[in-house]
């Protein structure tokens, strides 16, 4: 892996982008990484575009500027593709993961990366979360998708960390639903 991995999450207020970055950080800590997880705060309201960020490194992280050139971009809501440039600053060799039910080829038409070396993956995290958690909550399955397409975390430690994090607040049924959703997204993400 690279010395410093930077991740940007795009979502809409209420979809759990901020929680996703915290959960990912928690999982990375379990594997001995140094981490940062921080949201971009502005006008906080349901449905408004929001971003949150992660830094992950084997070394101490000293940078305290915003993430401008992410290695990974995760999009929790495909309608954001029509209103903001989710590719902004993404590094060459970077990876974009979109939560969508649309076929990959349709989604690719909406993302302008030209001939750059950037891989696009899709996963239907909405459907997975409705099936497994009984509500539309795409954030946890998206972490499963990220773990699949990246090389810095493994799925078992992710599941362990998520269980620990969610058990503070949620009953076993919800925890299991989230874990199943993560496993399914891990299997179903593709390009």
């Amino acid at each position, binding site marked *: 892996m690279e010395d410093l991995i930077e991740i940007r999450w795009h979502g809409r207020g209420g979809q759990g982008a901020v929680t996703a*970055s915290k959960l990912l950080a928690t999982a990375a800590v379990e594997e001995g990484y140094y*981490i940062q997880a921080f949201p971009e705060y502005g006008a906080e309201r349901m449905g408004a575009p929001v971003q949150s960020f992660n830094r992950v490194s084997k070394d101490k992280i000293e*940078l*305290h500027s915003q993430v401008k050139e992410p290695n990974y971009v995760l999009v929790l809501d495909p309608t954001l593709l029509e209103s903001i440039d989710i590719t902004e600053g993404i590094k060459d060799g970077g990876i974009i993961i979109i939560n969508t039910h649309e076929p990959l080829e349709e989604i690719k038409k909406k993302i302008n990366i030209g001939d750059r070396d950037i891989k696009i993956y899709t996963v239907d995290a909405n459907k997975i979360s409705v099936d497994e958690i009984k509500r539309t909550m795409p954030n946890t399955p998206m972490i499963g998708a990220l773990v699949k397409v990246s090389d810095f975390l493994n799925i078992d430690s992710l599941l362990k960390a998520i269980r620990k994090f969610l058990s503070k607040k949620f009953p076993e049924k919800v925890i299991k639903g989230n874990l199943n959703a993560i496993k399914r997204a891990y299997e179903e993400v593709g390009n």
Partner: protein
Amino acid sequence: MGKKVALIGTAAMATAMRQINPDVVSAFPITPQTAIVQDFASYVHNGMVDTEFITVESEHSAMSACVGAASAGARVMTATSSAGLALMWEILSIASGLRLPVVMTNVNRALSAPINIHCDHSDSMGARDAGWIQFYSENSQEGYDNLIKSIRIAEDENVRLPAMVMIDGFITGHSTEILEILEDSQVKGFLKENKAPYSVLDIENPSTFGPLQLTDYYFETKKQEADAMVASMDTIKAVCKEYRELSGREQPLVDTYMIDDAEMAIMVLSSTAGTTRSVVRELRKDGIKAGLIKPRLFRPFPKEEIIESTKNLKALAVLDRSDSFSGQGGPLYSEVRSALYDLDTKPVITNYVYGLGGRDTTIDQIKKAFNDLSSVAKTGKAENLVNYLGVRE
């Protein structure tokens, strides 16, 4: 040794408060307050601390309640941010004038107008002359450590002054990072009994608090306060040394990076020091003799350490995350220039006001400041002493 945990910055501060277990916490619980007192309220509710938690209708009242409780001899803490600190202002100097060791976290955020919720240091720099000890923290680890140290320093019989510990709003306050926390028992063992010399509740030995002092004694009282602030430096150093032995963390009052052979350096408080350190590391790979100076303490002003850290430099840029609107640069700049003024050899000192209202301070901005500095170092002259970094003009 302690254990590593991933916490958001405000939770790190609340954790320190839980371990400190103050007698009284009084706080205004609504915006611009942060999650520090929300977390702490849950510790009170869950019986994890013995604290009397007083919620009040404003920060003015919060600090007033702190003054009352501290006058009784209680260990007292609070937390605030931005306009909250501004609203406390009248009572800040009562806490220090009465020599009450109230300890507070201030999560640094901009002042209105325009309305803004993001990080800058205008709030605490507005309180720099209020007679409070001031620590600035690069990350939540330093915030946590500074808060625990501050209790010992403030309550020391040779100090008896209030202390505020700053963490950067959002950048540190709302960011999840890893820090190492001490065992509860280690914190308990580190703190000493808070021996207040007088208490309003000591009816056997009645005493008057906050009496009228006009032209007769006010000046002498204030001089004692000024002397106490200067003298507190010895206690601060002793407490920091003891804390280093406990925690294993080396945290000098003025921290430096690659300064020994540096020709130029940036001096900056809090989280931007981390970004600057990574820029220095990068510049050093290209053979550029850059360095970083990071004061952790601003009140009392660590003059000797500042002089020592700058003695080999040709050019120094002091970064201020607040403006004095004076045409003479920000508060850190003024003090550093003043501290170096009498030296025969000193660097050319320039100022950059940066990051107001949370404007992102990027690697490129820091590189620009170093780029400017390298020509200052070469020519021995600065085109502009006071500059603004990252503003659109």
